[in-house]
């Protein structure tokens, strides 16, 4: 019997260890697993490497993790926003490490981890500062930089509906990094708006098959 549903947010993030690499879905305020991130804050894991597109905003989710000094390092494409005050404060003080990755490369590196690949060459950023220290090779007539997979211990993802096998569908642009992050982590934890019966999701339209999902928790919208 496969049942990946868990009863509480605390169950969902149970066991996340200090020093973990944690993927956090979302782009801007779309598709952010806010409740899971707050549960992780509550759970207490620290010394985290957080991989997420932005570096949090205001006092919520990733910004709160940073504020509470749980984050050793951020791997992201765009840490700067109107509300990214906690990140900027610690960054200026040299108290948080930043690895800046072009957005498509960030996503592709997580995909490579989930796909069992050893890395890939991409033209993105090959002529930029972000290629410094990396292997660059001319392939198909253009300079390309070698990028390595980005695997993680935990992924926190927000989806819309799930069944007990962990099959997922998303809503509009909230899909963003979720499907890729779900493949790249040893433990994939998902919050959804609604549980549905097994068989209720159209097999032609499942976006993340349950094979990539470990725990699902329902969060009231």
């Amino acid at each position: 019997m496969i049942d990946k549903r868990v009863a509480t947010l605390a169950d969902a993030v149970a066991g996340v260890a200090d020093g973990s690499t944690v993927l956090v879905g979302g782009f801007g305020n779309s598709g952010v697993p806010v409740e899971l991130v707050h549960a992780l804050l509550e759970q207490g894991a620290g010394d985290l490497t957080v991989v997420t597109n932005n570096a949090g905003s205001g006092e919520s989710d990733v910004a709160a993790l940073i504020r509470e000094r749980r984050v050793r390092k951020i791997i992201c494409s765009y840490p700067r926003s109107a509300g990214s005050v906690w990140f900027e404060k610690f960054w200026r003080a040299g108290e948080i490490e930043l690895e800046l990755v072009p957005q498509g490369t960030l996503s592709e590196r997580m995909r490579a981890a989930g796909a069992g690949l050893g890395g890939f060459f991409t033209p993105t950023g090959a002529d930029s500062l972000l290629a410094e220290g990396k292997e660059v090779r001319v392939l198909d007539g253009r300079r390309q930089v070698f990028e390595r997979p980005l695997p993680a211990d935990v992924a926190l993802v927000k989806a819309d509906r799930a069944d007990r096998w962990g099959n997922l569908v998303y809503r509009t642009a909230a899909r963003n990094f979720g499907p890729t992050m779900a493949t790249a982590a040893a433990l994939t934890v998902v919050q959804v708006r609604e549980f549905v019966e097994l068989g209720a999701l159209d097999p032609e339209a499942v976006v993340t098959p349950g094979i990539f999902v470990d725990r699902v928790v329902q969060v009231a919208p």
Partner: protein
Amino acid sequence: MTAPRLSAVDVARRVARDIPDGSYVNLGIGLPTLVADVVGPDKEIVYHSENGVLGMGPAPAPGEEDPELINAGKQPVTLLPGGAFCHHTDAFVMMRGGHIDVSVLGAFQVAENGDLANWATDEAALPPAVGGAMDLAVGARQVLVVTTHTTRDGRPKLLPRCTYPLTAAAVVDRVYTDLAVLDVSPGGFVVREVAPGVTPEALQAVTGARLTFAPDLTVVRPD
């Protein structure tokens, strides 16, 4: 330079004229976004956003916003019939894989060989941030840049070589400024059109790179 500069909307209108019917287009944050507002109703354009939206429609009516349905600039958008959602990795397959016909980007600097600098300045006080700029610059079939011709304090943005960190090398096809429309050619910038009242001498005076003027140089018609 005393001639009046083109307004941002006029520049957007000029860009819109160059976008063929049926194109797949990504509009960068800021000035480029204006282009969608002025593309004629005779054209069917599919707008792509790197967060996984293909086929964006106009901004939603006030009160109708869906907080999860946003564009890359984090503004609420709508989806047209025929539009579709995809995940981030696939959205960047579209960009990096050469499937976007036209990418319209902003710029800090453009060099005469097409080098683009639009993600970082030499300012060290702010943390660096890149987003999807590098993917858009290397992947689209055509890279169009929309920018003011000079910085706020009057320094040129079109240069022999970029002094800011590069986004990508030799990628820009055409530049639309508030003073001119310029193509990047093997011999450097070729001015195709100038804003009304702008002389070649005056344009050269506010440009860092050496300009060539097209034999059929015309005045920008924004409409």
